[in-house]
């Protein structure tokens, strides 16, 4: 699984990074890199079957237990 993740992300980098470097769009490259690295970390953790907490269940907890918003 991790091999597939690495191949997919290598493909993404190969598609977009050379264009950004050629056009000297450094700000775009930095933003791209941040999202790219974040996505790669999350995908790799999932490939290694590491349990990642769901943001939606976190929001649900915040709405119900902290804000006490519910329909009863």
């Amino acid at each position, binding site marked *: 699984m991790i091999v597939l993740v690495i191949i*997919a*992300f290598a493909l*993404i980098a190969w*598609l*977009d990074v050379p*264009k*950004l470097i050629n*056009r000297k*769009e450094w*700000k*775009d490259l930095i*933003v*791209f890199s941040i*999202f*790219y690295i*974040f*996505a*790669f970390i*999350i*995908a790799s953790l*999932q490939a290694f079957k590491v349990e*990642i*907490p*769901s*943001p*939606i*269940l976190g*929001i*649900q907890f915040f*709405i*119900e237990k902290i*804000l006490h*918003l*519910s*329909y*009863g």
Partner: protein
Amino acid sequence: MQREQISSSLLLFSIGCFIQGSTPLTSFLSSTAKKDAWIVVITGFIVSLPIIWMYTALAAKFPGKSLIKINDIVFGKILGKVFSAFYVFFFFSLCFLNINQLNGFISSSLLPETPNLAICLLFVFMCGWAARSGAEGIMRCSFLFIFITYAISILNTLLLWKNMKLVNLKPSFTLPFIKYVQGTLTASALPFCEIIAFLMFMPSLKDLQNVKKSFFVGLCIGGLTLLIVEIRNISVLGPTIHVLSNPNFEAIKLINIGDIITRMETLYAIVLITLIFFKVSVLFYVTVKAIEEMLNLNSYQMLVPSIGALIICFTMIAFNSSVEHAYWGKGPASFYSLFFEAVLPTITFVAAMIRFRKGREVSK
């Protein structure tokens, strides 16, 4: 790169199609309001009218400006970016929540042996491709999709005519009042007010005078479909409607005209997948476009693969089971969505009205 041009009629059809893409979400309404779900569709529609009016008023106040630019103008660079970041997360979350809904439908009804990841991967790839091609490309599809959806919805309703028992709609107003409030807010937040995403298309719009008409007529087209579908499902399925995870699919399964016209649910599944494809493509485009505008980037295309990968990851981790998703859709989802669809735009609207009163020009 040539500037994209969207006509007001294209916007109108896209909004209608976008709301039609929410038909699977009617299961949340029927599980809350049971056989009175059709009433909450109407009340939800009425409640969303002032909110939609507010969106159109913002669009009229800042002609040709997207939601992100409006935030920058109204709140300044720093606070505006905070508001924009909230919207980016909201649009992003709608992407993976809708794909999760589709995953649940496909794995429970069509392809039970296929892993969710495979469905999700292919689907996000298609949506990403559409988003990368631009707003005009996505929205041009809406005209075709909306007519196919209407044709198939009406055809299915006619074929189900003999199964429909309008007596199933009675008696009305027997549930506790809070259930109607819950249903109304869910109907308003989930299908209707999600069209806030279309404020991101304002810079590409050709005729800015017709924004109000496009929003309201589009809303009516989508709302009417949801109402027809809801009344049909309740009158066909009766009291069992609130226990079914996908009432539309189960209702259409019952079509049987002389043992010849059967298995119409496959046709419905194709339409549903097409509509969700449209909805997610719009949301995907809006997410990357919002990031581009928020961070003043030169292009959004290069963000599509990374955001697509994140959507896949978050779809897989969002819920542990379809029961959790159903619970989220019935309750917390309406509070969550209304924060972004009603609370934040109201703050923006009030702040805009105070800062740019009549006579004071919008500077940028």
